[in-house]
């Protein structure tokens, strides 16, 4: 069974709960623009935290990650528009298809390490992007697909309403982060960390490294696919740009900025970068310059990212003491 270590987990959980409460009051302002930006932030935060499973917990640099988001989005869109499936089933199948694509890429590519893995995932991202553009009889190419049906309502709840969708995304976001955090503090998560710390030693204590790498890749790409599907049914229009390299880089930046290997940190990174990119909207593509500069600064001065820094400096000091007492009691 999955078991976890209560110490650090409890702070992360409290933090998530407080954030959820704060987000829950935002619709009271009635500001649709802010809600829109936050919905996109929730989706990107899920993406970033799911990517963190790979970047932070297995130490693999993955460059074409937005491809999985796009695969989820296109799968759910096409299934609901061409096949007529309920978008709810589409969302689930979007996750499944993304996982399958993840296995197709992962089974050969996860034998690679470091820059080789990064380049092969980059290649995969470019291939997906080109397929979406060139398979125009299915995807309508660069024109994109408009008129995607919204998620059907349940009872009296109508998800085509922005406020309602906002709450749905908030719940999905909190649930996703909670589950990912639970996973990383479970026995499974400890095994991942051990692998990251030393592969030879991990093999020597009986860890089947390929199995764990593939399984975590499957979990991560499933979350990315679901996030993409929710995006499609929210925007009701998608085009291949969501799988573009610039999006992959943005997600990776969120992970590094927020703090790789913390799950919660990359979500924070997502909110910060989404906020910055809204503020800097008039600068158009020059925003990427600022992203770049920000990441260089963070990596130079706060290698653990924002959350890594905060938890080390402020929270952990007290917590480490508590945990030590706890551990000593447990022993």
């Amino acid at each position, binding site marked *: 069974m999955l078991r976890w270590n209560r110490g650090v987990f409890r702070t992360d959980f409290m933090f998530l709960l407080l954030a959820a409460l704060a987000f829950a009051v935002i619709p009271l302002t009635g500001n649709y623009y802010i809600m829109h930006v936050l919905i996109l932030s929730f989706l990107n935060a899920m993406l970033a935290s799911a990517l963190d499973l790979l970047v932070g917990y297995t130490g693999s640099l993955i460059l074409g990650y937005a491809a999985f988001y796009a695969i989820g989005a296109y799968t759910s869109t096409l299934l609901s528009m061409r096949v007529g499936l309920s978008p709810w089933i589409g969302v689930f199948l979007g996750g499944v298809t993304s996982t399958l694509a993840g296995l197709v890429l992962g089974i050969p590519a996860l034998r690679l390490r470091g820059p080789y893995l990064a380049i092969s995932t980059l290649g995969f991202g470019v291939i997906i992007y080109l397929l979406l553009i060139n398979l125009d009889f299915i995807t309508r190419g660069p024109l994109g697909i408009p008129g995607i049906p919204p998620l059907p309502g349940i009872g009296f709840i109508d998800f085509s309403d922005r406020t309602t969708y906002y709450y749905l995304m908030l719940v999905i976001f909190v649930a996703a982060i909670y589950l990912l955090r639970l996973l990383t503090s479970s026995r499974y998560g*400890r*095994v991942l*960390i051990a692998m990251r*710390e030393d592969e030879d030693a991990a*093999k*020597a204590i*009986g860890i*089947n490294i390929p199995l764990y790498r593939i399984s975590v890749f499957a979990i991560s790409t499933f979350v990315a696919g679901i996030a993409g599907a929710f995006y499609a049914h929210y925007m009701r229009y998608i085009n291949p740009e969501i799988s573009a390299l610039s999006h992959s880089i943005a997600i990776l930046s969120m992970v590094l900025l927020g703090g790789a290997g913390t799950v919660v940190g990359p979500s924070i990174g997502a909110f910060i970068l989404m906020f910055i990119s809204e503020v800097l909207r008039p600068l158009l593509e020059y925003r990427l310059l600022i992203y770049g500069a920000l990441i260089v600064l963070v990596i130079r001065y706060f290698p653990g990212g924002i959350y890594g820094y905060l938890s080390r400096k402020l929270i952990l000091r007290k917590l480490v003491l508590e945990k030590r007492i706890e551990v000593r009691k447990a022993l």
Partner: protein
Amino acid sequence: MSREVLLETINIWKKFGGLVALRDVNIKIFKGELLGIIGPNGSGKTTLYNVITGFLKPDKGKVIFTGKEITGMPPHEIAKMGVVRTFQLVKPFMGMSVLDNVRVALYMRYGLFSSVSESEILREAREILEAVKLLHRVDVTADSLSHGEKKKLEIGRALALKPKVLLFDEPTGGLTPTEMDEIIELIKQLHDWGMTIAVVEHNMRVIMNVSERLIAMNNGMVIAEGDPREVVSNPEVIKAYLGERFAVKGK
């Protein structure tokens, strides 16, 4: 000796390009014994360990463990069967706490989804850390341990797998004399508990102190085998360590 053979290598060959690292190596590890393996640098001791534990595949030959062939099996499966090694250059999980280092090995032994409770795991981790005298360091990360403590942690992590045979690769390399004595004590204690142990060592004091039987290797071959005192006075062994000139004076 009609003791039960636990692990055996049969005609193992391993080449790296033009270099023959192991040539026709046959060794036996008997159940419950404490075997020493010596040999100058590059004589193939660590390569032999790598072949036994699946980190390297031999070009020819077989590794037999409890009557079953394990040649070419992946390291994690061999480790799960109970053939557990330590590393010459310590490899603890640096960013993890001492407790978690041992705990993760316990998870692997019981299986990730076993019903063994966390308190059970902690109790066992405590016993292990007590045995390797690291209990006072449970809550620090492995990278803040001293070199000697890291060596102990690695032994603890290996013990967590409840090995049937424990292969030490220079367990006292780079240690102070005091730390060395502690490790010697620990190895002897494990042996007293009935564990089957093989120790690769450079340090003569350590090897003469612990081993019941000794194998000497040179140039990828076993050059002498038997009672430790006889092996170290064997002219071949002296020649391998000190060169031709000293061989005559040897005995």
